[in-house]
């Protein structure tokens, strides 16, 4: 049975809701409304004059094959970042969960990268893989592999995915470890007595019981890959080579702040807004059903 709290009258519930409504209105509805309004105009950069174009900005956007390609790039990029950062984190959490001695040190060290800002992480990875002076690219050269993410699209994508996932692994690790430790030992021990091996136990008991954590991380990581990886891409590839790493958010920046095309930039924000809304609905409607709380 669901629990319901009933109020007499309207005043108290309204007052209780008010702070949340005010915050949402000021920091979400107002800017989102502004973006939608602006997306129907082509202003000049200085705001001296502006023309109403209706849906013209959207027409212009979807007529651009590089914009359409950015959807694919974003899907590949976000998918890879989410997959890599979550699987590596889960693997590390499983190992850390089995540790008896020294687990504190191990955990602390694994959490460190989370403290590094994305732009700084980008610069660190860029130095390691710099085509001429990078340590890693130098060793790859010794092994006979000519690393050049400046020209090679696959390598560029790999590098931004690695740099974006790296700091995120720590964050995911924390949640997975907490999730693992919340699973009652007795259930796992019972399975072990019944003869279930580690892998069977993981597949049939641990992973299903971990699903609320996994689901939460999935939502959070997709949003991260969509919006917060800007710094990494900006420092490492600037969206290149040949737009191979231009994700939707990066294009909003490039058109708005490099190209000073505020109309197109606003229209892209509106598209992003709709896209993330749809994604979240999908996640909650279809994936959450398979989550066991």
């Amino acid at each position, binding site marked *: 049975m669901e629990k319901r709290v009933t109020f007499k009258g309207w005043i108290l519930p309204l007052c209780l809701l008010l702070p949340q409504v005010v915050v949402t209105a000021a920091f979400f509805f107002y800017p989102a409304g502004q973006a939608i309004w602006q997306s129907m105009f082509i202003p000049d950069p200085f*705001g001296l004059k502006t023309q109403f174009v209706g849906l013209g900005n959207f027409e212009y956007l979807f007529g651009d094959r590089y914009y359409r390609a950015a959807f694919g790039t974003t899907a590949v990029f976000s998918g890879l970042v989410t997959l890599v950062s979550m699987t590596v984190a889960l693997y590390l959490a499983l190992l850390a969960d089995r540790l008896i001695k020294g687990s504190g040190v191990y955990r602390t060290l694994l959490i460190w990268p989370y403290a590094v800002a994305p732009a700084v992480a980008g610069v660190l990875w860029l130095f390691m893989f710099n085509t001429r002076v990078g340590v890693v690219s130098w060793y790859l050269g010794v092994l006979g592999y000519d690393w050049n993410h400046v020209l090679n699209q696959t390598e560029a994508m790999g590098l931004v995915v690695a740099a974006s996932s790296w700091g995120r692994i720590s964050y995911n690790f924390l949640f997975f470890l907490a999730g693992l430790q919340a699973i009652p030992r007795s259930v796992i021990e019972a399975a072990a007595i019944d003869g279930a091996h580690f892998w069977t136990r993981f597949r049939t008991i641990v992973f299903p019981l971990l699903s609320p954590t996994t689901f939460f991380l999935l939502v959070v990581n997709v949003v991260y890959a969509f919006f917060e990886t800007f710094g990494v891409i900006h420092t490492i590839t600037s969206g290149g*080579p040949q737009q191979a790493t231009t994700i939707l958010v990066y294009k909003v920046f490039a058109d708005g702040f490099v190209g000073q095309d505020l109309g197109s930039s606003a229209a892209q924000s509106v598209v992003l807004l709709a896209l993330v809304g749809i994604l979240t609905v999908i996640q909650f409607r279809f994936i959450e059903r398979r989550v066991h709380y």
Partner: protein
Amino acid sequence: MKLKALTLALASSIAMTSPANAATEIQWWHAFTGRLGDLLAEQVTKFNASQSDYVVVGTHKGNYSETLNAGIAAFRAGEQPNILMVFEVGTATMMAAKGAVKPVFEVMADAGATFDPNAYMGAVKGYYTDTAGQMLSLPYNSSTPVLYVNRDAFTAAGLDPNMDLSTWQNVGKALDGLKAGGSTCPLTTAWQSWVHLENLSAWHNVPFASKENGFAGLDTELTFNGPVQVNHIQAMGDWARDGKFIYNGRRNEGGANFRAGECGLFTESSAGYAGVKKEAKFAFDIRPLPYWEGVAGAPQNTIIGGSSLWVMAGKTPEEYKGVAAFLNFLSSPVIQAKWHQDTGYLPITMAAAELTKSEGFYAANPGTDIAGIQMTAKAPTGNSKGLRLGSFDQIRGIIDEELEAVWSGDKTAQAALDSAVERGNVLLRRFEQANR
């Protein structure tokens, strides 16, 4: 006793500050850090010390793009500085912003300052004047691409370091020799679009865009997919395939490799001179940018890169007087000659070039006069005055992408340049629409 000393100190500090309070403050937003930032601050200090009516305050606002964005955002908020440093590719954006800027010729006329536009080098001034020949912004730092030669690399490969490198045909032979001699980096470049397309077009007197490269109207279209440009980019692409041209990045990443002695030849801005001179542990010299022999009219003249100072609208007449005084100070021969000698940027006035020559700087530093000669040997044509294209920062990004496709062997030069022209034209139409 102590109290008296304190009162005296206080009184004197009030006396010191009060004239400064009376002085009009002039805000200048710029994009320079490091050594250039120090030299800029030195100019400001000198100006402030030279008079007591105005105080110039220089503020660093990030790189060129960030400074322009800061200026635009500030204007929208009504908080714009008096003077904004804008890189040359932002020129069309600023020119189109009538009402946001006050043209320099107007600032000078209103202030009653003596101002002779003809004192400035034609090829520098041309970039920043309107079709009526009036100066809209004041050129600040201007440079042009030249060829840097690592003489030791030539000797090591068994080549004569004095060989003629004035044409790309001869450079091709040198690259063969360097490669055969075991060089891992015969040629590298900085700013590929600026050197190998924008300047290439001006140097060979072929249009980069229609309507005099955009000077004559917003309805300009890119035309850099002509035979001269395609042949050059194809040659560079072939050199890249054979390991004779090494691509290191869109900006001046290649400079680190050249200064470390890895590369034989390097095409880079004349302003790269200070860095090369400081770091290079090998004998080097500077040559004019090569041209293709057989192209009619080549070599014409090269065009500039760098920035100019725009005066923002909406300030008091008193402030504009201060701006006029400061801009005149910056253009004075002594300040300009020092700037030119310290940085490798061009002297923007004829007088500064003369002064540098009479001081014996060119004789002591061979090659530093090449940039100036390259720009002024011939009177600029409609193809070599400069570029005035909207959204050009982004168009350069497109050109970079397409050139990278050539260097990696994904596209032929013709296909890449056709695509760059097509994509760039879309942005030009968009800019035309926004500024109609």
